[in-house]
């Protein structure tokens, strides 16, 4: 009886597998699951199809040469060999090369649709519409929870103020195309000035909805101009080709649509500056026209006129002074004559001419015989004194 160790057993199996052409350098198709990306750089996962599965190793060196990043649920074609992992007594598929499968079909579909729609004229430059210079309301067709809407809101917030209407849509997976079409149609019922249709970057499968005919047709039928913003891959999607303008990312779409606030402010200042300059220009022209007209009038004549006028003015003011003086003198003379009349009117002056004033005993001036009775005492005022007398007789004037 030949007894061997467990290790020897596994080594025999390993040698057997390594020698079998059916198990070396073979292509296997399957889907990636249980993916572990080890910190060492090696990837471990299970490749499975409907009926079976196999543990796989993808060492760092091989992985670094792959044209894509392996992800969970990805369909792949893997070239490798079956090996036995001696410490565990398990066997595994060691991958030497790997390609994405199914992509070929997608590319074919993409090219076929591109040719078909191109022939129909959906990509014609002549039907691309101009975007509004200052949109007031922007529609956004994207996932309300994705990175795209966050980027758009962030960028639009610091640029020219515009309202945003989000039309939520599924941007990947089953029903994405129908959902995007529905959102585009809904936005067309509102008064948005322009719309962004897009999502953040992803693999070709993730972006696939933007390569579907229904989405292309909805963009084509949109009354509102469309800016596509699908990921940041170099390849154009069909949506990019149909859209009025293609932006490489959602942030770029927002920047492209809304002018920069400070730039607009500078533009405004510039335009106003031009207005001021033009106004100053016409003022200057007016001024020089005026000066020209002025020069055409004879300057000597103008000077003479001026001197003459000054003289007249001087004279006038002199005569005015004289007039005032004369007037003052007249007033003084009048005052003096008035003074003498006043003196002449004084009753005392009358007395000096031989008249007298007769007063009652009560000192009242008497003018009529009716004021007196016989025997009444009266006082007569004379120039140098007074005398008292008694009424002895009364006789009225006839």
């Amino acid at each position, binding site marked *: 009886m030949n007894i061997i160790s467990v290790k020897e057993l596994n080594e025999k199996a390993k040698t057997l597998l390594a020698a079998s052409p059916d198990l070396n350098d073979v292509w296997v198709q399957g889907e990636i699951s249980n993916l572990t990306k080890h910190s060492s750089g090696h990837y471990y996962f299970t490749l499975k199809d409907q009926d079976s599965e196999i543990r796989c190793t993808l060492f760092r060196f091989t992985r670094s040469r792959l044209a894509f990043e392996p992800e969970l649920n990805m369909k792949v074609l893997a070239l490798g060999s079956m090996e036995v992992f001696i410490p565990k007594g398990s066997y595994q598929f060691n991958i030497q090369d790997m390609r994405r499968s199914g992509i070929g079909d997608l590319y074919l579909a993409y090219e076929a649709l591109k040719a078909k729609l191109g022939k129909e004229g959906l990509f014609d430059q002549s039907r691309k519409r101009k975007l*509004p*210079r*200052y949109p*007031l309301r922007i*529609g956004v067709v994207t996932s*309300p929870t994705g990175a795209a809407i966050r980027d758009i*809101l962030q960028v*639009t*917030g610091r640029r*020219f*103020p*515009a*309202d*945003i*209407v*989000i*039309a*939520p849509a599924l941007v990947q997976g089953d029903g994405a195309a129908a959902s995007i079409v529905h*959102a585009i149609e*809904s*936005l067309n*019922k*509102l008064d948005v000035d322009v719309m962004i249709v897009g999502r953040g970057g992803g693999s070709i499968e993730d972006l696939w909805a933007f390569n579907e005919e229904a989405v292309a047709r909805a963009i084509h039928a949109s009354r509102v101009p469309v800016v596509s913003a699908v990921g940041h891959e170099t390849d154009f999607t069909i949506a990019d080709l149909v859209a009025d303008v293609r932006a490489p990312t959602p942030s770029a779409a927002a920047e492209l649509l809304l002018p920069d*606030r400070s730039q*607009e*402010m500078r533009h*405004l200042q510039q*335009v*106003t500056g*031009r*207005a*001021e300059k*033009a*106004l100053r*220009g*016409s*003022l200057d*022209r*007016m001024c020089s026209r005026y000066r020209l007209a002025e020069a055409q009038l004879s300057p000597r004549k103008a000077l003479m006129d001026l001197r003459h006028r000054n003289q007249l003015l001087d004279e006038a003011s002199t005569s005015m002074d004289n007039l005032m003086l004369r007037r003052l003198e007249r007033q003084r003379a009048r005052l003096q004559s008035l003074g003498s009349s006043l003196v002449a009117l004084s009753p005392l002056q009358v007395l000096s001419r031989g008249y007298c004033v007769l007063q009652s005993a009560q000192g009242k001036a008497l003018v009529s015989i009716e004021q007196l009775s016989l025997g009444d005492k009266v006082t007569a005022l004379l120039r140098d004194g007074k005398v008292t007398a008694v009424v002895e007789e009364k006789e009225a004037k006839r």
Partner: protein
Amino acid sequence: MTEGKDVETMGFEEAMASLEELVSKLEKGDLDLESSLLVYEQAVALRERCKAILEQSERRVQKLIDGPEGPELKDFE
């Protein structure tokens, strides 16, 4: 043109276009002084309008939802 239109209700695009139009009119220089001043005055009013729009930073973010009577708008966030 700006005559007979209320500057205060103009959108930015319209106000800016009117402003640019007035400025080129001024720059032609074939207006008499009084008209120049009038045009300049209008230009200043338009500039103020544009500035006001630029400085007002409020904007609305809404979300479209399917209601029983078609699309409806709700505030977002």
